[in-house]
């Protein structure tokens, strides 16, 4: 019986010193509009792909720092590229920034989170579900 091929995603930072590799399919891909993601990335929205942390390997000068009381973020110490978000409540999962994927077009975002914090001028034309806060926080009207 033929084995199901396992997907492999690769990515890295701007300067190329940090490279990562993720195996399998992401559990989830979402757009986050929260203020912390905005500050961390300098962009209005950060798109995240969630993988099992055991399936993601990093190589290079990655800096991990506690970014809030509930989570840590990492970035390249040489060029600053934001790389990951990891919540204390779910250490078995890690979120990778879509912008550091070598081929982000292969991802399929499923929803928008924290749209209550959305930058007012940003108009989104996709039909994905929009959650006011987290996925537990309920949907918002478009």
């Amino acid at each position: 019986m033929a084995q199901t091929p396992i997907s492999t995603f690769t990515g890295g930072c701007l300067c190329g010193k940090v490279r990562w590799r993720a195996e399998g399919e992401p559990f989830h891909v979402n757009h986050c509009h929260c203020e912390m993601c905005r500050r961390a990335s300098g962009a209005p929205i950060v798109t995240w792909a969630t993988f099992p942390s055991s399936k993601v390997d990093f190589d290079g000068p990655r800096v991990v720092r506690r970014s809030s009381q509930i989570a840590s973020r990492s970035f390249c110490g040489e060029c600053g590229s934001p790389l990951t978000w990891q919540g204390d409540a779910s250490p078995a999962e890690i979120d990778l920034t879509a912008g550091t994927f070598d081929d982000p077009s292969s991802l399929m975002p499923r929803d928008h989170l924290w749209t209550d914090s959305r930058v007012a001028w940003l108009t989104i034309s996709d039909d994905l579900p929009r959650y006011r806060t987290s996925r537990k926080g309920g949907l918002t009207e478009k």
Partner: protein
Amino acid sequence: MSNNAAIARRGGGCLCGAIRYETLGEPTSVGHCHCTLCRRASGAAFVTWAVFPAGAFAFTRGAPKIIRSSPKAERAFCAACGTPLWFRYTEGPADIDVTVATFDDPSELVPQYAIWTSSRVAWLDLDRHLPRYPDDGPDFSPYKG
């Protein structure tokens, strides 16, 4: 009535707070950039930039790490938390492009156009009303011509 009172002063800074900056006056332009370098630098699918004359921007706390991000450009970020802060060309007008999302209140820095849409990630469908340019569009670039 003083005209000075009308000059906008805006504050911003990185995620961890080690770096703070201030801008004076209105940006000369605000636009989305979909290029692959901005994507890598931010981790996001696109970056929104506000362009100011270099003299209208100042750090008020801390100093960033500056890297040469391409042969004719530099980017600055917070060495403590990674936040991307500005982009500038090393040739041409003395402008500085500030990441709009690091302003304390980005709501008045409204994007007017999108550049490098030839590199746009297809699943990102936003601001359809804005002019889209496949390349640098109206922006200065030392790589042009």
